[in-house]
């Protein structure tokens, strides 16, 4: 018997035969992927492998040349844009903090998809913003100007903004870039907690060890294709890292978490 959903069994967010390009320069071709529901999927790969491009397509901020992104089994462009934003939140790599904006006002902008022209501020908005601020540890910052904050604080504020959207799908494009190592782990721990609370997370990361430590589902990309995907412990091998990144290495268990840890043998010289 035929199922009523066109892609029964597929996950809530998935892509079929995506072809992605910037001005005719094809970055991703014929890519299909399922992002496991309730998982913390981390996408890794060398520079320019198309991982951020894929994330943009999944959040429909980049229109595919061909192929479809499916949200709840339906093509994502069949929804109204606000309806998508009520289900899926995305934090781009470098969002711009408007001049002279207080933290709370910035976080409140995440409520836009829930608001109407005449209903611009409700009790639900109020609660969502307060929750988002407290769950990211930004409650004390709420009256400060975003421009006065440190990099780590600012990133938590941005995450609070997309949490105020109250979606169970959250996409993050390199959320740790430009942060020092302590703040990188602070952001990743925050992501892990959001995942533990039941959200489906998808993030693009650069650091393989961080990816292996936090991902429940690791996706390795190269040249616009998915080379491997699965549990980090199952797929992250020295051969894979060498063939994808060109880096000879050994893989040892992370002494803290037991997840795979990449230790380079020697950096190969270019040329």
């Amino acid at each position, binding site marked *: 018997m035929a199922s009523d959903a066109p892609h029964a069994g597929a996950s809530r967010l998935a892509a079929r035969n995506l072809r992605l390009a910037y001005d005719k320069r094809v970055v991703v071709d014929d890519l299909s992927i399922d992002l496991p529901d309730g998982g913390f999927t981390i996408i890794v790969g060398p520079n320019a492998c198309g991982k951020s491009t894929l994330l*943009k397509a999944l*959040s*429909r*901020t980049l229109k595919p040349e061909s192929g479809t992104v499916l949200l709840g089994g339906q093509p994502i462009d069949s929804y*109204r*844009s*606000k*309806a*998508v*934003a*009520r289900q899926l*939140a*995305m*934090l*781009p790599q*470098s*969002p*711009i*903090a*408007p*001049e*002279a*904006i207080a933290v*709370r*006002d910035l976080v*409140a*902008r*995440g409520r*836009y*998809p829930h*608001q109407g*022209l*005449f*209903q*611009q*501020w*409700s*009790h639900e908005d*109020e*609660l969502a913003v*307060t929750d988002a601020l407290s769950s990211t540890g930004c409650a004390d910052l709420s009256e400060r100007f975003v421009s006065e904050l440190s990099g780590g604080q600012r990133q938590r504020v941005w995450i609070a903004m*997309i949490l105020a*959207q109250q979606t169970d799908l959250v996409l993050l494009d390199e959320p740790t870039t430009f942060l020092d190592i302590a703040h990188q782990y602070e952001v990743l721990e925050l992501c892990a907690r959001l995942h533990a609370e039941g959200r489906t997370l998808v993030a693009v990361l650069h650091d393989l060890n961080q990816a292996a430590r936090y991902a429940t589902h690791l996706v390795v990309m190269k040249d616009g294709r998915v080379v491997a995907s699965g549990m980090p412990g199952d797929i992250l091998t020295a051969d894979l890292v060498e063939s994808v990144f060109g880096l000879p290495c050994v893989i040892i268990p992370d002494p803290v978490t037991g997840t795979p840890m990449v230790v380079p043998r020697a950096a190969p010289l270019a040329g």
Partner: protein
Amino acid sequence: MTGSVATAVRPHPPTLRIGGWLSLPLRARSLVVGGSLLVVILVVAVLTLTLGELGIALGNIVPTVQGAGTRRDEIVLLAFRGPRLVVGLAAGAALAVSGALFQTVTRNPLGSPDVIGITSGASAGAAAFGLLWPGILPLPAGALVGAFVAMALVFIGTGSGFSSPARMLLVGIGVSAMSLAFVQWVLVRAGREQATVLASYLNGSLAARDWDHATTIVTAVVVLVPCALLLSRRLQLIEMGDEQADALGARSATTRTLTILVAIGLATAAVSVAGPIAFIALVAPQIARRVTRSAGPNILASALMGAFLLGLADLVTQQLPIDVTLPVGVVTALLGGIYLGFLLIAQWNKGSL
């Protein structure tokens, strides 16, 4: 039960609620700023009507407006200072809102219709249809055509439409320079008398405005400022980058196009009745943003600030104790030039230029 449902949440910001269908957040500071601006605009308006030889005595303003004043006061109000005041305030508001919209879509405080080529395009249109091919179009319509041609050139010149703010500014500066060169060429070709008439228009002038001018600009403000207000929530999201705006469901490309159309309409309406008055569009939204200390396009605060600044500049122009009557555009250019220098230095120091 009469009591409302108790919540632990302190309402923040204070919210205006009417029945179940309207709930708007209010900012105390913006309300105070808006109220104060209304008061100073009223003061400027009263001074404009009362000062000088032709001035209407303070106590006679209300009777004259009601139609019970003396014949002399009536002529001053209806034929001289009334339309000039209305055109000045409305054009100031239109220019300021246009500037606020452009600055938001370009994410740059220099992105105003002056810099981006609209006002000089309008001047070129006015010059073309006023002197080069007279009789085809009235001057305001010529200005409108010029503004649209300039924006079309910017749109084509960037190679990516209006999507890259930095390119828009650069190409706009080029188009602006070309338009001004065209104006100069037309002026040189034209006879001296005609050129003098056009020259005063090209400086931006509120002298000898009539009620037709007032109707044009007031209509533009009444129609287009609400459109700007409708767009302003999505514009707040565009401030955070197109990608973030799209992710929040604000459709940045559509919003940007609509916004630019509204901004062109406002700037052109103002230029067509008052000439390319310099710097109001650039300065008013920036000052509005600083005094309200609020992010976002600040449409209403900018409109009031623009009306106030142009009203004040025109008051100064009319009451200056010198022999020549300056066009108001010279006064705004002088004040605005100082402000622009300050802004450039500030951006330079911040390293964002």
